[in-house]
């Protein structure tokens, strides 16, 4: 080992340093994850019974990732004097993996030797047991080294395989993990179409994919991926090549298809999945509202929860019999009309003072407004109106023409209600984006002073964004109240604003589909501020993951999961221009002067006031 290492140092010291750096980071990450309590807590969740639990998956991921990172051939390796050979790369990856695994080995030793439980709450016997596989520290020490090196090697080797093989293997692994993570969803769905037998061999009775199930899943997905790879690309390319009306038709068909699935899906699945869908839908609605404000108009509103709160409380006051001061007990739909008016007023009231402020001041002031509104609802002062800390309870659900009642006991109905309002929100966002107002929002987002100089009344336009956002947020509030049947100030913490923001950003600011995808992935899997997702076990670490995800997203993929084309141009302008230029798309004038038409000449895009 040392001789190889020595060789490596002499030959490519930079590469070796990289190995050490990434390996050390992997080890640190491992230790951090272990001490966060994640592995022990997640150990109860099986992935593949009986060999792999989510807890182990979490710690095993680090050496693998280290291996994959180190297995990557450095960019422009053709220009290097001594490009690393495959063997070098695998050795590097193995060493990195070894280091990452070594982190856990050392941690296991430390755990056995010292007691640091005083500040570190997860410095526990359970962790030691987890790390030593219940076999004593010595076993754990060796095993982690071996596992780390092994996984590093696997990761590194994987990277050297052809991209096709990589994809197939990735698909196989992801399918098995996804099948385990989405277990309740899959079970629900499969049972909905009366295929219980499938569930029985695929999943173990207490959760997790069975070995047989995992093998079958891996093989099926692997074959599908192997066969399907080229085809998906061709279809994509064909669709992309389509022009005008034909393209529109394909898109419309797709949208209609998704719509039909969304309408049929709740009928096939059980309560739990419907509840999940309803929660996701609620956040889709809220995120679409915030998307108008942040994504389209470029106003960073950190107090969006205020609109949600106002919608909830006004609905509660207007419909509940137990509302403390005024209790008109209006039917939900009638109340909704008033709620919209109230939302518009609140949107104007909050919007007007902040609208002329610089972006960052606006952020902090809207955050302040959000807190002020929550504190007012909480206060003893106004408890005669809003119930204060005791909230308003025993609120009836939505009565639909006397035919049926939508309330929390029937999540399927709630989901349809949410779906209806999501459709409205999507329609509103879509129409407005393609209107005079939408263009004005874009201009304001791009460069506010210039927009102003081009005759756009930026104040009015931005106020409109606030108002539209407020109305959509209040829809969310109204549904929330009908669903939960009670309203307390604790539902409207700053946290909610932040999570909605993460959803919008993760999905892709300014893109309706991105926002929906963001809500489905984040809220569906991790869960909302007070809503569990599919991975209930993650709830303790949800916010940690949200934070990390937000940072990572901003650094690696600021345009989000499904970016709006525009937004991604904005964020990658330089690269984009270079691409365009390389593709010969960039327009060069007839009498071109190289000095004037270079790709480096970009306009100032950061726009803020």
């Amino acid at each position, binding site marked *: 080992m040392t001789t190889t290492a020595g060789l490596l140092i002499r030959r490519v010291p930079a590469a070796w340093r990289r190995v050490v750096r990434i390996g050390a980071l992997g080890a640190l990450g491992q230790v951090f994850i272990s*001490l*966060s309590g*994640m592995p022990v807590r997640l150990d109860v969740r099986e992935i593949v019974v009986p060999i792999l639990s989510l807890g182990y998956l979490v710690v095993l991921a680090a050496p693998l990732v280290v291996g994959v990172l180190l297995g990557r051939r450095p960019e422009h390796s053709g220009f290097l004097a001594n490009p690393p050979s495959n063997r070098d790369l695998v050795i590097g990856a193995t060493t990195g993996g070894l280091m990452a695994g070594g982190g856990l080995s050392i941690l296991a030793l430390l755990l056995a030797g010292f007691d640091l439980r*005083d*500040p*570190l*709450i*997860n410095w526990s016997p359970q962790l030691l047991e987890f790390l030593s596989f219940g076999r004593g520290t010595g076993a754990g020490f060796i095993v982690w080294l071996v596992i780390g090196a092994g996984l590093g090697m696997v990761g590194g080797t994987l990277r050297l395989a052809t991209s096709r093989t990589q994809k197939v293997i990735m698909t196989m692994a992801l399918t098995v993990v996804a099948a385990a993570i989405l277990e309740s969803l899959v079970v629900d769905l499969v049972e909905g179409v009366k295929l219980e037998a499938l569930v029985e061999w695929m999943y173990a009775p207490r959760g997790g994919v069975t070995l047989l199930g995992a093998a079958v899943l891996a093989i099926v997905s692997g074959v599908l991926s192997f066969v399907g790879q080229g085809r998906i690309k061709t279809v994509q390319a064909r669709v992309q090549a389509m022009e005008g009306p034909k393209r529109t038709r394909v898109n419309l068909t797709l949208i209609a298809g998704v719509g039909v699935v969304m309408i049929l899906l709740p009928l096939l699945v059980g309560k739990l999945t419907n509840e999940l869908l309803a929660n996701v839908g609620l956040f889709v609605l809220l995120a679409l509202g915030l998307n108008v404000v*942040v994504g389209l108009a*470029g106003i*960073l509103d*950190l107090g969006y929860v205020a609109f949600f709160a106002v919608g909830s409380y006004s609905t509660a006051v207007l419909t509940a019999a137990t509302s403390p001061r005024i209790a008109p007990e209006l039917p939900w739909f009638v109340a909704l009309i008033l709620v919209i008016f109230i939302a518009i007023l609140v949107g*104007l009231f909050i919007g*007007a003072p902040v*609208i*002329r*402020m*610089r*972006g*960052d*001041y606006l*952020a*902090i*002031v809207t955050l*302040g*407004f959000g*807190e*002020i509104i929550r*504190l*007012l609802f*909480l*206060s*003893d*002062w106004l408890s005669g109106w809003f119930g204060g800390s005791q909230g308003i309870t025993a609120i009836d659900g939505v009565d639909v023409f006397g035919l049926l009642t939508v309330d929390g006991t029937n999540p399927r109905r709630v989901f349809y209600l949410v779906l209806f309002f999501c459709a409205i929100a999507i329609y509103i966002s879509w129409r407005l984006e393609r209107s005079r107002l939408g263009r004005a929002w874009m201009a304001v987002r791009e460069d506010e*002073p210039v927009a102003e100089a081009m005759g756009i009344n930026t*104040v009015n336009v931005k*106020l409109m964004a606030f108002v539209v956002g407020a109305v959509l947020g209040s829809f969310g509030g109204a549904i929330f109240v009908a669903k939960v049947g009670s309203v307390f100030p604790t539902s409207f913490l700053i946290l909610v604003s*932040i999570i909605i*923001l*993460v959803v919008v*950003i993760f999905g892709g600011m300014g893109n309706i589909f991105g926002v929906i995808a963001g809500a489905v992935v984040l809220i569906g899997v991790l869960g909302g501020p007070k809503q569990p997702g599919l991975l209930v076990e993650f709830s*303790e*670490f949800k*916010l*940690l993951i*949200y*934070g*990390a*995800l*937000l*940072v990572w*997203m*901003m*650094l690696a993929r*600021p345009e989000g999961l499904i970016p709006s084309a525009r937004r991604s141009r*904005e*964020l990658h302008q330089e690269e984009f221009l270079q691409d365009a230029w390389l593709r010969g798309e960039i327009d060069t004038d007839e009498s071109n002067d190289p000095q004037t038409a270079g790709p480096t000449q970009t306009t100032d895009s*950061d*726009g*803020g006031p």
Partner: protein
Amino acid sequence: MANNWAPKTKVDWFLTVLRVLALGVVTVGLLAFIAQQISVDNPFARLINPDATGLTVAQFRGLVISGLSQGAMYGLIALGYSMVYGVLGFINFAHGEVFMVGAMTGMITSNKLDDAGLWESNFIGSLLFIVVVSMLVCTLTAVIMERVAYRPLRKAPRLIPLITSIGISFFIQNTSVVLLGPTSKAYPDMPDWLTAKRTFLEIEGTKILVICVAALAMLGLWLLVERTKTGKAMRAVAEDQEIAGLMGVNVNRTIVKVFAVGGAMAGVAGILWGVLFRSVIHYTGFLPGIKAFSSAVVGGIGNLGGSMAGGLFIGLAESTGPLLILEPLGVSGVSQLRDAVAFAMLIGVLLLKPSGLFGERLSAEDRA
């Protein structure tokens, strides 16, 4: 942007109404307070709040002192916001968490010292020690933060680093939850001579300490920025990064220094927090952080003296505001609304004077 006071549009009219209303509420509240101080049975005071009781001089002094000591801490944290904003032009939302890291570090260190018996036997030494440790840890946190999250984004559109900083804030806060647990943790007992009230104005020793240390830190920072080469480099970078770079200033290193100094200040503030309140929890940094940022804005961001003054203003406002303004107006349970008062003050100040009380000092880009 031109901001004339003469209303031109409907929005301007609305804002004028709002300004008048805000001033009106404050004025009526204060007048009612004065009236009830003159005589509790004053008809004017009774009319507005039939349950008015008034405050004694000692109570009033207590409010002011607690407001000042809290405000001094906001001011110290605000310096970090202000410096980063002045130089890089974005809110480092996570700065409040750096402060929390400082308070946590102090808690862990001081408890270990207490276990070793050093806390009681050599309090001053222990205090200095935890201040140094906390400053180091905070500086390191701030510098790592800059390196990992902000440096790659220096050229990105403005919202991006702001959102990143929100993410970091969340991450650090919840790191504390998962590593140290979600419950509040206490510093060991302070010696009696520190917590006892001094004969001088009957102020607790801890509060005197907080105010003095804040003043010292402020002085040190002023000297650093105005009198040293590093300070000059910072000011140059704040003025124009590119030109400063051309003039031979190492921009990266200067920005790191800005973060480091801000972090160190937050570290000091964290220890002061521990000394004053003795209790820390993962969200210790969040609200004080936001209020400190509000202080920086209120005082005029980028303006170091203004940040300190803004901190004192916000501290005083949230301490005295509920009782001086809201209570005389007949609002019940006013203390619950202190955060609302602090934020309302921020909004009010920005409505009346968009550049803060003492004016902003911003980099060239921000003025554009």
